[in-house]
């Protein structure tokens, strides 16, 4: 009786834990991409059916929505280029700067317009006009797949 009571359950082997965690780590490293910029404007993407996957390599993002820290009732739309909110007029400089760093022409990039679904079309048209002036004619309206 006394002998039995003293018998202990052997400790669980944890030697495979690093392997498992490393596998998880590699999965996430392969399946994800680095977050490049912090969002400053709130963008709720609209839903659509006829959308395609976009190639990240030549994609340039432009955000448009209400600022994150907007006071209640304030509904001015802001445009975010890179990591700061800017004006519509800055788009042309932004495009030329981005294409210069990427080593691409303005015609080789696709400008991804991440526009909030509650935004008005007028402001979007102003952005598109600037993009036409910048000769960045390939655009895409960012949208999520409709369920």
């Amino acid at each position: 009786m006394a002998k039995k009571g003293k018998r202990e359950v052997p400790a669980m082997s944890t030697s495979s834990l690093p392997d498992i965690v490393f596998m998880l780590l590699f999965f996430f490293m392969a399946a994800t991409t680095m977050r490049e910029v912090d969002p400053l404007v709130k963008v709720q993407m609209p839903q659509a059916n006829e959308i395609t996957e976009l190639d990240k390599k030549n994609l340039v993002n432009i955000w448009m929505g209400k600022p994150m820290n907007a006071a209640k009732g304030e509904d001015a739309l802001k445009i975010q280029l890179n990591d700061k909110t800017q004006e519509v007029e800055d788009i042309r400089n932004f495009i030329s700067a981005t294409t210069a760093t990427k080593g691409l022409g303005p015609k080789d990039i696709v400008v991804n317009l991440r526009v909030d679904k509650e935004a008005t079309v007028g402001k979007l048209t102003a952005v598109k006009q600037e993009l036409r002036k910048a000769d960045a004619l390939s655009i895409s309206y960012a949208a999520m797949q409709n369920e």
Partner: protein
Amino acid sequence: MARAKKKAGEINSSSMADISFLLLIFFLVTTTMDVDTGMKRTLPPWIDPTEQQNDVDVNERNVLKVNVSRNGSIMVGTEEYRASDLKRSGGHSRLSREVYHFLVDQDKSNKKATEIEGAKYNVSEGLVSLKADNESKYKIYLQVQDELTHAFNLYRDDIARLVYGVGYDELDDIQAANIRKAVPMKISEAEPNDQTKK
């Protein structure tokens, strides 16, 4: 001699799990997994307004005018559409059906003989002119764009079946590019000043 037999002590690897956990959490926090998806469009090149404008002549019969107003109603030609007409039932919405029939039902004279894979096919020259009020909602605007794209894709599917005998989705890249070239997505997104002109 006795020294040579002494084994090097093993490295304690119990902290390995902790280190890799830290790395894992770091990657979980700093990365995103979302895939960028969107609707592709090509803008017309910029024309300086001070320059003499020679508008491209488009036959009125080939143009379907779609107008989105600020209260969310949509005019297609002379007919009024509501938000419910953008909702799909049975795979198509009322708007996409209408635009698709506009492309299909055009007279022969309004169809251009287009060469695809060495043979000629009559392809509609239909163009959709999309105008939206500056105060209209982007959500509705994109929904309309979605339905227009759907109509053009349906028409491409038809042509693909004529040429290759299979649907547009089943074509390989080159064949799909041929179809895209023959049936361009002619959706003209009107400029803002166009609205005051007419």
